[in-house]
């Protein structure tokens, strides 16, 4: 049986459907009396945010403030170098970068947004785009980018950036998950080594392998789930298992409730496996030093493309990339990654878009993906990227994306609550909490948030009046 289409995919993206709707996005509704009362109480009116207009350097270059996450060291270094290059190439522009810690990124963005203090260019983890676009923090960028830039993007990046029929955000790379493993340790227990997504281990097979590996290991552990990470990691890395089992996070495509989905039998079944591996059998290394796999304490590490170089260095030829286990409906990897948007407050969106065009040049994309091991976001860069070609070390990641073994995170403004609730639930389950009731609580939290926000009504086009 063919695996079903990942839920929630926009079936076709037709850029002609919504021509030219740049310009002001939705404004805040300050009509309600309570809001007015609050404004008085806070000694502040709706206009109290800063509205400074364009700022310039001493040399007269337009300053573009940019926020990015302080991710892997190498990514940071390259982004900084690229910005320096951009600033040199463009005398009239000056990108000013601020790095924000990843753990509290969304909180920082939301707080800064309140006073219109968001920078001109904002990087964020892909799925947050739906919330930010819904709130009116971003502006559509389809027509700001060079036509060639947009047409060059791979479909998953176009999908990720699309919400309510418009294109809001563009990443320079996509992501992927896999099991990194030590070939020799797998061979020692005579395990089958699948390298194609269609041949992924079934979850039962995976379970048996883990038990055998743990028995053979000095540490007693077999698996690294990067439990030392925080925040978005859990939803990104482990919710695909729910989809692989036939469950999910929220009802698709309505996104109106999580009840019956996140706490449905399929999702419960998938989460039971994690509890078994982590809590019941202690097969998972806590990874306090982030070195469980490289130090050889475990034979398998469930993580993302960004560890490729690091692991290759530690294991050399012994390293093998295996698709995530199949929980019943085919293997599913997470996808989507950090992505750039232009804020609604940016006074010169055209100038900001030039920076995005620059970041999506082959040279920059290849430089970044060469360092972080991610899948390039453009067709032309993928063609030039050996590791992703047939026979390349990271071919698996490209295969998963192009052959549909990935699942995008839910395309709804409720995403920040979904990820927060899922993280809390995953950790509770990992610590031995009752799977069913924990997922029920998480589902209720998400459903209530959706209800509280009137189902997150999509920004109707008439709200943009004259622009359309």
């Amino acid at each position, binding site marked *: 049986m063919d695996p079903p289409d990942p839920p929630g995919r926009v079936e076709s993206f037709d850029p002609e459907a919504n021509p030219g709707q740049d310009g002001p996005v939705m404004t805040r509704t300050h009509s309600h009396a309570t809001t007015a009362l609050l404004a008085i109480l*806070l000694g*502040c009116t709706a206009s*109290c*945010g*800063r509205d400074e207009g364009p700022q310039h350097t001493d040399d007269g270059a337009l300053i573009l403030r940019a*926020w990015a996450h*302080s*991710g*892997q*060291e190498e990514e940071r270094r390259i982004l900084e170098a690229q910005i320096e290059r951009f600033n040199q190439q463009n005398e009239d522009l000056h990108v000013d970068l*601020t*790095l*924000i*810690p*990843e*753990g*509290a990124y969304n909180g*920082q963005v939301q*707080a*800064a947004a*309140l*006073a*219109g*203090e968001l920078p001109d260019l904002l990087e964020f983890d892909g799925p947050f785009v739906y919330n930010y676009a819904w709130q009116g923090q971003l502006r559509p960028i389809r027509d700001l980018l060079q036509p060639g830039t947009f047409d060059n993007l791979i479909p998953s990046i176009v999908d990720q950036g699309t919400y309510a029929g418009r294109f809001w955000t563009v990443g320079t790379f996509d992501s992927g998950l896999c099991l990194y493993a030590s070939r020799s340790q797998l061979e020692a227990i005579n395990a089958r080594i699948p390298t194609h997504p269609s041949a992924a281990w079934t979850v039962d097979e995976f379970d048996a392998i883990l038990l055998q590996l743990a028995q053979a290991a000095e540490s007693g552990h077999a698996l690294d789930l990067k439990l*030392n990470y*925080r925040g978005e990691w859990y939803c990104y890395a482990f919710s695909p298992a729910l989809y692989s089992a036939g469950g999910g996070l929220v009802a698709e495509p309505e996104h109106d409730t999580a009840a019956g989905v996140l706490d449905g039998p399929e999702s419960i079944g998938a989460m039971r496996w994690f509890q078994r591996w982590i809590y019941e059998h202690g097969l998972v290394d806590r990874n*306090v*030093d*982030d*070195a469980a796999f490289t130090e050889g304490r475990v034979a398998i590490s469930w993580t993302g493309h960004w560890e490729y170089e690091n692991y290759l260095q530690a294991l050399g030829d012994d390293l093998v990339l295996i698709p995530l286990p199949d929980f019943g409906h085919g293997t599913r990897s997470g996808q989507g990654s950090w992505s750039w948007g232009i804020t609604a407050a940016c006074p010169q969106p055209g100038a900001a878009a030039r920076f995005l065009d620059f970041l999506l040049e082959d040279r920059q994309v290849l430089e970044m993906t060469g360092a972080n091991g991610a899948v390039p976001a453009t067709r032309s860069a993928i063609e030039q990227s050996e590791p992703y070609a047939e026979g390349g070390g990271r071919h698996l990641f490209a295969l998963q994306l192009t052959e549909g073994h990935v699942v995008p995170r839910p395309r709804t403004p409720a995403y920040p609550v979904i990820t927060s609730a899922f993280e809390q639930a995953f950790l509770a389950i990992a610590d031995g909490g009752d799977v069913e009731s924990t997922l029920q609580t998480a589902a209720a939290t998400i459903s209530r948030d959706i209800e509280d926000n009137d189902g997150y009504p999509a920004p109707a086009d008439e709200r943009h009046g004259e622009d359309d």
Partner: protein
Amino acid sequence: MKHRAARLLFFSALTAVAAVYIAPVAFMLVGSFKPDARVLSEAGSWRAFFPAEASLQNYRDVFARVDFTRYLLNSLWITGAITVGGLVVNSLAGYAFARLRWRGRDRLLLLVILLMILPYEAIAVPLFYQVSLLGWRDTYLVQILPFIANAFSIYLFYSFFLGLPRDLEDAARVDGAGALRTFVEIVVPNSKPVFATVTIVTFLFFWGFFLWPQLVTSGDRVRPLPVAIATFQTLPPLRWGDILAFGVMMVAPVVAVFLLFQRWFVRGIAATGSKE
């Protein structure tokens, strides 16, 4: 003889307790000089407290990876400003409540005492929302201004000034000095203990201040040390040796000041307890 045995027993017991007590500090200090891989792998043996292959590499790494100097200066500036500003503003208020007679004084004093019960955590949420709305986030000011006036400091000053003998002030008043001059020239020089107490308590508290700056700082620019070390811990790659070196450098200035002015520290802290 029995006496000496008891003494020895007491001394060994105390030494043992002290050794356990100081172990975490020793571990941090020793670990900060060790190659990263040894920090955790040797933590479970006596080696945790003896540096093998000692070097300053972790310290160099910290400076290469983050702008430690900036965090340090941020912390010094923020904490210093709160402390100095607080000394001026709160001592003036304490004096006005203790010595001057004016309408509304008793009611305001009661208000101050009531506000003493209100911990800043209770106002963190609304204040966070307000400063976000006003666009004050990520500045020094938002980390300083709200904390200068402090009900507990006012109370400490107030009760100290109440206990000062009046004669000196009366003499100054007779000479025609106003309240402010009397305060600056007569009262302040005679109130060193309470100024020391408030300085130490304020400085220590805000040097370790975490919750508020965590909420209101975004990037590196105005980030103080406690938030910086928590962030540093989550900044890949995870290197415990670097983190410990960061920790040592973060606490070293305060420990140095503490050792130099130990008597003042101890007296200052003790003085908070004598007020009831």
